[in-house]
């Protein structure tokens, strides 16, 4: 057990754990989007940014990735952090103006739209769904595909996947509600990831490949 300081309060933390975990245990609020306690952190959304002081230097780090060290001083609510989070939210809002979660968070942080060209992607490319699929479910059915503005979360060749076991974990953890379950399919906007577990189970005697064939013929 080591001691650190968050917002002027001395707290105990377990050596090696992240600032976010130590803070969450005691109910200290740090906003997050791409963080989930079941999977490894990735620092994708940058929303959990906090200021840390080490020696004479102040720097901004993501709380979800930064490990605690003895004597670490953390500030979660400085002007610098507020401004930074507002900026992040403005960018997220521009990308995902249709997401209720993003709009609410932006509102909370005083971020308004209009600064950047608006887009209507619900997905913020945080990759939480991919981490759940890889680390928890171990199905490895989805990943990032494409580069730059083409980048998205999808199955290989953007085709319905037979690696997907239909658990819906990706839809459950998605912070912006971009992944949905419609009928028997798990979808990210127009891309079908796979067939829901209970429908797969009913397909006895019929391999997934055959379903895929029927689907592709249907298209």
């Amino acid at each position, binding site marked *: 057990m080591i001691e650190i300081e968050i917002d002027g*309060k*001395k*707290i105990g*933390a377990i050596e090696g754990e992240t600032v976010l975990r130590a803070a969450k245990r005691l109910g200290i609020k740090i906003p997050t989007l791409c963080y989930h306690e*079941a999977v490894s952190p990735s620092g994708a959304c940058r929303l959990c940014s906090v200021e840390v002081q080490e020696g004479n230097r102040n720097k901004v780090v993501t709380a979800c990735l930064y490990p605690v060290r003895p004597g670490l001083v953390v500030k979660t609510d400085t002007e610098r952090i507020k401004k930074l989070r507002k900026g992040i939210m403005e960018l997220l809002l521009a990308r995902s103006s249709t997401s209720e979660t993003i709009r609410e968070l932006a509102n909370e942080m005083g971020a308004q739209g209009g600064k950047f060209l608006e887009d209507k992607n619900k997905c913020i490319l945080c990759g939480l769904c991919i981490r759940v699929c890889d680390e*928890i479910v171990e199905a490895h059915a989805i990943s990032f595909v494409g580069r730059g503005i083409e980048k998205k979360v999808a199955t290989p060749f953007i085709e319905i996947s037979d690696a997907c076991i239909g*658990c819906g974990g990706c839809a*459950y953890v998605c912070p912006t509600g971009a992944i949905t379950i419609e009928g028997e399919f798990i979808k990210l906007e127009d891309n079908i990831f796979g067939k829901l*577990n209970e429908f797969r189970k009913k397909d006895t005697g019929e391999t997934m490949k055959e379903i895929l064939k029927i689907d592709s013929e249907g298209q």
Partner: protein
Amino acid sequence: MSRIGVFVCHCGLNIAKVVDVEKVAKEALKIPGVAFATHYMYMCADPGQTLVEETIKKENLDGVVIANCSPTLHEVTFRNAAKRAGLNPYRCEIANIREQCSWPHEHEGRERATEKALKIIKMTVNKLVNDASLVPTSIPVTKRALVIGGGIAGIQTALDIADGGYEVLLVEETPSIGGKMIQLSETFPTLDCPQCIETPKMVSAGQHPKIKIYAYSEVEEVTGYVGNFKVKIREKASYIDREKCNGCGLCIEKCLTTVSSEFDLGLSRRKAVYTPFPQAVPNIPVIDREHCGHFTTGLCRVCQSVCEKDAIDYSQEDRIIEDEVGAIVVATGFDLMPNEKLKEYVSDPDVINGLQFERLLCPSGPTNGLPVRPSNWTVPKDVVFVSCAGSRDPEHGVAYCSRVCCMYLAKQAMLYKHAVPDGQAYIFYIDIRSNGKGYEEFVQRAKEEDNIIYIRGKVSKISRENGKLKIWGVDTLTGELVELSTDLVVLGTAMVPAVGSDEVAKRLRLSTDQFGWMQEAHLKLRPLETMTAGIYIAGVSQFPKDITDVVSQASGAAAKILALFSQDYLLGNPVVAHVDEEICAGCGNCESVCAYSAVEIEPIRNVAVVNEALCEGCGACAGACPSGAMQHKNFTKKQIFDMVEIATEKY
């Protein structure tokens, strides 16, 4: 003409001092039907009983009246004596001339008391003249027991009954047996950990071929009577097929939802599909519907998708199991009184109860045994323990002593010092109650070896000041006020009946005391029985006690049940209600007044029928019957009116 014998007891001087027993015996001879009368110093002593037996044979008596103490004490003694002499035991009656004559009339003169004693005897003789020779009914015994509550009391009772060769249904409300004991860090005074000493018993219960554990279940309904109870058990939907699940734990590992853990009293987090602790018995997880992502959002199916046994069933419903048992043990345990009831003590994350501190001290607990302040997870430099927080305090809590707090606070202070050698522990106490084997030595060890400071006095107020908790108290040995600043406060909170035990009592029609503890049949002589035959109590459900006492009581209750099960048939009391079907018009008055559901109107013949096994012989139905069809055996209308007539005669 009857040949009745009257035996007047002196009861030492209890009766003879007030009643002229010699005169009573002489006058009793004049009562019509009395063929013999005598008096003796102690009728209940062996020679007294022998006197009754021999006189019955010698004088060829067809009934005896024993004029002595209350029938609750010696009716059985003399009925057995009569039986030994070849008489029907129900031709023996008790005339109570002690509780109903000599004791209350001590100051009203010997003459009047003697007259009243004689009157009582006369009434009894007249009743006896019309007493029938009754034969007890025999009731079959279902040799299977139901144990309600899977704590250490329930586990021990179940094991002892099962080892005796009989089946046991062990019903536990939470997903695993183990109870409060498995939450403790170490146990006084030996400091052995429950994870080491209770788990073998849990495993034995789980694997015993005669024990069927219904975890995550509740007793829904109990009907019937000793030897013949019918029970309904509600096995709550756990959304996991208990037969298919092999307990691999993959669903728990993969679950994406975490919530506050009840087992760790909010000090750690568990998954939405969970077993309360790693050594759970049965090792079958349950899904917490309230928090599970599948039920809250409809999106998640991770556990179902990864389960290799296909055991997850989101559509599972509660299952009702019906079974028959011959005996029931109530072992519903306790909970701690909520801290909020103690209004002078600030509601603060660092003011915790004993059970929370047990989890913090537990090597397998949320901090691996390192005590921390829940508010900031740092190690407290000092801890104040407050005894009698709610106990012995009728104004804020309960009047009784919870009996274990003195010992567990000493133990916790000791364990804290072992974990934090440079920390300081203070214990506020009113009296140190260490009345058990090795207990006093344990407390002395805490004081002398671990330098725990004991302050005799009550804590009047706890508040939060400058980041520390401030304690106001008084040292009653020096008479000085004490003010202390501390990092952590542990309250030795009062033990109260487990939440929901009132509902269990209601379903079993058991009475509870003013605090809600299960009422025993007699505090000293029948502490394991309830007033309902065939239902027993074990453990803290009766009153706070330590583990040693709980285990002893649990084995005691099992012994009672083994004795019950050693009989194929029970003899029922034949002094019950009886219907003359020729007279009965089927009005149903009797059915509606019966508190034991022993009378029913048979729909086809439209007459009342008495279930003699259920009838307790209270006489309410006989009183309510407008036609006199319902009569109480040996308390018939004629018998009662004869007695009333004598009772109201002028002296």
